[in-house]
Structures are given as C-alpha cells and as structure tokens.
C-alpha cells in the first residue's frame, strides 16, 4: 500500500512539469470532513511544516444566520523560512503563511490551494526556487490526500 502510494506520487511528480495550466490545486478526498481534517494536518506536518492555525470559516457564517457546510482554512509554514523570505520578498507578506482551504461536500471533502509556483515562480531565483519547493510539497500533500481512504 505504502509502496503503491510512493509510486503514485513519484509518477505525479514526474508528470508535474507538463501539468501547468490549472491555476488552483484541488483534490477530492474520500473521507468525511473530520477524518479528512485530521489526515490533512498530519500530511502537512509530514512535509516538515508547522500548522500555525486553523480558521473556522463556517462558525461565523452560522452565527450570522447563514447556512453552510463545514469549512476551514489551515495555515502552515516553516518558522525560519517565513522570517527570512518575508524580509527579502515583501510580496509574500500579504500571502503568508501558506494555506489550504478544506470543505465538506456531501460525504466527501474537498481541499484547494493556489499554486505558489504560478504566483511567485517568475521572480528572483531564490524566491522562484522556494516557490518550486512549496508547489512540489503541495503536490505531495494533495496526491496523498487523494489516495487516502
């Protein structure tokens, strides 16, 4: 099972350079919302990130009288990288920490994130390299979630 997952991820990674047209990364997760939420946080941590906060978007909506399904935004980053790169590249300031939105759709859960490579990939080499790394980490996270059951 584990090997299969690695193979799958490796395959996706090797295809990655060709799959550039979608502006947003998305995955459908065959898990209920609470399961997917746990799995997502675990997967993000496995890629070496710290979860800095989970924002509950749905609570405010429900309290204000709107109907909504479960909805969260998970913020994550690496302390040192955040400190250094935001100083050098102010464009990151309004965007950081990184984030993934997660919301329920029936018995499934959807996750989505913007592609950092598309946003910051055409800048100075240092930032472009960092963006490339975020993108490939996100790809691993998304394909792990897609495969999870």
């Amino acid at each position: 099972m584990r090997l299969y997952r690695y193979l799958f991820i490796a395959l996706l990674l090797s295809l990655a350079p060709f799959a550039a047209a979608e502006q947003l990364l998305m995955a459908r997760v065959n898990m209920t919302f609470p399961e997917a939420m746990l799995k997502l946080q675990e997967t993000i941590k496995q890629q070496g990130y710290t979860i800095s906060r989970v924002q509950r978007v749905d609570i405010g909506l429900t309290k204000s009288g709107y109907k909504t399904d479960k909805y969260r935004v998970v913020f994550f980053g690496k302390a040192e990288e955040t400190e250094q790169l935001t100083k050098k590249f102010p464009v990151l300031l309004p965007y950081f920490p990184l984030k993934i939105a997660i919301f329920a759709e029936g018995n499934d859960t959807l996750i989505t994130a913007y592609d950092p490579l598309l946003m910051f990939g055409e800048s100075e080499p240092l930032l472009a390299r960092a963006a490339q790394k975020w993108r490939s980490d996100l790809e691993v996270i998304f394909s792990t979630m897609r495969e999870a059951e």
Partner: protein
Amino acid sequence: MKTLRILLIGFFVSLAFARPGFTETSLQQRGAMLYAQHCASCHGDTGKGGTGVPLSNTSFQQQVSDRFLFNTIKYGRPGRVMPAFSQLDKQDIQAIVKHVRTFSSARPPKLSMAKITGDISNGKELFHKHCASCHGTDGKGGKGTGVTFSRPRDLPIIAPALNNIGFLKSASDQMIKDTLMQGRDNTPMVSFLKQGLSEKDINDLVAYVRNFERYQQNYDHEKYKNEPLMIESESPYDLQTTIDNIKRAAVGKNFRLIRVQNLNAGLVEESKENTSQVIIYFCNFQMLNEALAIDPRVGMFLPCRITVVEQAGVVKVMAINPKRLSYLFNNDELNRLCGGMHDTYLEIIEEANL
C-alpha cells in the same frame, strides 16, 4: 537514496505510459488516473457532479459525442470555472474521454455535423421567453459553479453558459437540437418538445444559440491577468497607530474584526513572535456568504486581511489584490465581486492613512 529510488521507479513507470500504442488496459488506467487528478475534484469520482455539472447523466451521455467531450476538455469554458486542459496531449484527452464514458452504459450518439438553419429572430424571442430565466439573457449561464449540494442553491444544477466559446466550439447543431428535443432527465433542463414547442421553433432556437458565436467579446476573466499581486501603501503613522486606524476603517466599512495577530504566530513560541509584522483579520458575513455561493473555493482568501509591517523605520500596509486572485478562478461572476473587494481594500487603506 530512498527518494532517488522512488523517483527512478516513477520515471520508468511514466515512460511506460508515455510510449505510443500502449495497451487498452493501460489506456483505461491512465484515463482513470488523469480523471482523478484533474476532474474528480469538481465533477465527482463517478461523474455525479459537485462543483461542476454531472457527467454521468444518462441523457447527457446519449446526447454528446466524443468530439464534444474532447473539445470541452481541451478548450474548457473560459470564465465559467471549467479550466482548459490545453497542456494535456491528444492521447491523454482521449483517455479521459474514454473514462468519462464508463460512467454510463448509454451509447454515445452518431451526430450529424450538418448546420441547422432557422429563424434567428424568432429564436431570440423564444429564448427570452423559455430559456433566459435559467441560462441568462444572451446565454451567459446561471450563477455559480455547478451542483454543490453542500450550500444552498437556487437550482440543483446550474445552467451552463451557451454563449461560451468553449461550448460553441464543442457542440454541434444536432447536439443542441437533441438536448432541446429530449431534455436531460433528472436535471432542470426539460424537453421543450414536451413543453409544446414545435420542431421548427427548436430549429430557430438552435440557430439563435449558434449565432452567439458572432458576439464573442474579450473574456472578462483575462482582464485581471496582469494585475499586480498585492495592494501596497506607505503609512504616515507608526505601527500601532496604523493598526488602530485600519481596525477603525474596516469597522467603518461594515466589517467585523476577527483577530489581530503577528504573522508568524503559531510558527514560533509566543515570546519569539515578530511583532513588526502584524495581520488584521476582518469579515463581512453577508459578503462571505455571497462569495462562497459563487465559488466555494474563494474561502481560501478569506476572511479579509490587511498586513501591517515595519521595516527599517517605514510602516507599510499591504493586502492581496483580489483582482489578481480572481483570475485564478476562471469565473466571470467572481470578477465583479473581486473588483468590488479590491476597491474596498483601497478605501480602508486610504482612510487609515488620512
């Protein structure tokens, strides 16, 4: 070492797939894999719909040709959420089409490619009477992204845009006619033959829909492609005063303050937080609700946020540029909302700087 091995294996596996003339089963597997990667998030694992319209619908499968599916994948629906998969090669798209066909046992039609002629002005009249309520005036489609049941919707399935170049490039006249004659079972799209229109009326409608081709404007969603990534301004005040001003200005614009935090809070111990990078979160729940109804994915950029930083004695106020981000969603409806949000951010920042 381990990653290297994994990468190597992955490389060989992908080489095997990339060979021309691969076997039927590997084509099927590839179709399934590509669908899971690129389509399932919106249309559902088995094509039942979600953020996108259902692809497993029996009448849909009976009415559309493989060419329609192929072109729809290739060109997408500009401005209507459905992306263009122009990066996929012909074989990959064919593999996906094959996979989409496994969602239903319905037989694909043999459609004539002949042009259907009709009276466009009568078609126009009929369209406004019978179709515009769902498909929008001028066929620009219903609001929203598809069928997501998890949020309240006016219709279970959103009516597609008919004036869309991606649709017009994919659909033959015959396909449009069959859809109108037969309707789509289990969707709001009913048979207009059964609704009392004649076959001639339906031909007139087909001619009117085809005529949309002549009015292709520049798409809205391309308009923000070259917007800067952020809104930025220098504050004449010190850090704390600027933060207070932003808070007051946001509340003055009917936002509720959610939270003020240091940017790296949660990443480091509290005592080590960088107090010269501060985020102010605020929200207007009516706006949030509206945004999520247009596209549930925009929540990723919400609640609203302004970041205030002090570097080398200069205080700067920054926000994401909603216009630039709108471009990511390929959704014309969202452009209007994001245009408004862009202006609101500017107003808050200007007022705080007064």
